[in-house]
């Protein structure tokens, strides 16, 4: 029995225009980062599959020149707390693109905000007025 062709939603998604470099927002509207890179899986005799969005300085700077990317990667491996690879969001969590990219997981699960957390804990909270969050009065 012949295999049914895969179901495709015919509305195409332009990856460069509507995904790359766009602001990533989680379900609460929190800014996670910009889509610095998009990873494709190349498959034999099948169309490439979009597998992940990458949120990483090294990925962004590598687009200028690999030297900058390698340097940013070195800084990341040396100084970024608790991460051995750049933050990736699996494309299964992509909801829609356009001006912003919306994902369906909270920012904590993306691990894209480690530097924000580190600065909050180690630097900002040590300065008077930096201990608590919320809106300024």
């Amino acid at each position, binding site marked *: 029995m012949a295999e049914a062709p895969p179901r495709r939603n015919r509305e195409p998604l332009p990856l460069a225009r509507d995904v*790359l*470099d*766009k*602001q*990533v927002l989680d379900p609460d509207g*929190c*800014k*996670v*980062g*910009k889509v*610095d890179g998009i990873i494709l899986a190349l498959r034999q005799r099948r169309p490439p599959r979009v597998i992940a969005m990458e*949120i990483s*300085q090294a990925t*962004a*700077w590598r*687009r*200028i020149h690999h030297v900058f990317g390698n340097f940013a990667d070195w800084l990341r491996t040396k100084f970024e707390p608790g991460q051995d690879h750049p933050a990736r969001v699996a494309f299964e969590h992509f909801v829609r693109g*356009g*001006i912003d990219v919306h994902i369906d997981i909270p920012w904590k699960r993306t691990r894209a905000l480690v*530097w*924000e957390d580190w*600065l*909050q804990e180690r*630097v*900002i*909270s040590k*300065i008077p*007025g*930096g*201990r*608590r*969050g*919320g*809106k*300024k*009065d």
Partner: protein
Amino acid sequence: MKNMMNLALGIVTSIGGFLDVGAIATAALAGAAFGVQMLWVLAVGTLCVMFLTEMAGRLACVSHHSLVDAVRERCGFRYFSFLLIGELLVDLLVLAAEIGGVAVALHLVTGVDYRWFVPIVAFALWVLIWLGTFSIVQNGASLLGLITLSFVVGMWWMGPPWHEAMKALVPSAPSHDTAKYWFTAVGIIGALFEPFMLNFYASGAIEEKWSLKDITMNRVTAVLGMGFGAVIAISIVMLSALTLGPHGIQVDSYEQAALMMVQPFGSWGIPLFAASLGIACFGASLQVALNLSYLFSQGFGWNWSENLKPHDDARFAMVYTLAIPVGALLVVVLGDPLKITTFSMALNALLAPVIVFPLLILMNDRYYVREYRNHAIGNVFVSAIVVLAFLIAIVAIPLEVLGG
């Protein structure tokens, strides 16, 4: 009534965006050296800035994205990196110039070397941004900045040469010091086309939660605010032409520029000039420092808002916390705040096309501005501004060498 108040406030804050150390310095220089001859440069620059500011505000109202946000998203990281590095360097110099302006203003009233005031000014700047909301930062400085109306009063007191001023609105070639004339023209344009101002205006619109219903207010604010700012700058040119030029006083320092207020105001002249310079520069330095944080945060997609406590936008807060001491250090190391100012205005002119050109794309992009796209006439005008900006960028540095 509330709308009128908001409108009035918007106009006042736009004056603050227009008038800063660059505008004051270049206007004073122009008036002292060339009389009212360069008013046409101010007029052309103001018209351009009105259009650009309105567009930046419209972009923010419709898309809720700032200019830097949209440039990264629309033009890609490569283009953005060029803007990032250029604007970082230029804004740090401008920040140094503004901090220096405040320090010089304090020196004018106390007689103490301006360098002693630099760390104090830098600290005050940081505290205000760290603890203040966007409204306090923006509106507080701008309301105090109404003191710059003293330039207008001074000009009226001296009896402005209206006939010559009207004639000077027509472009003319210099009768002497050609290289200095065109360098000063580039400086005036650079003081008006400050890249930080456009993005700060758009970011401010987002901070204040402007939306589609504020599009008309944006237009009025941009036009009237820049217009009023231009009136003050024109007053400085004319006052300088009336009081400094006839005595052969070339503006080589802020102390010399301050003399323009002595004739109309007597012993109050220097304190008034110092207050105007100091408050205008302090307001502008708040904007530049914040804009550096906006630049990085919006470009890299970090959480940002001046209305959030630093705990909630740590990277945003770190940028201005690091930038302010660097700006202060530059003033002390480079010295001569007036030279820093004129050089940074030339660099502004160099960078202007990089931020103006994407506006041509963005204001025609239905994703960003939907049905509020530019008319054909608007596009022609922006294209002309882009060409003008490129031409000025090409000649900025050679003129700096020849005429600066």
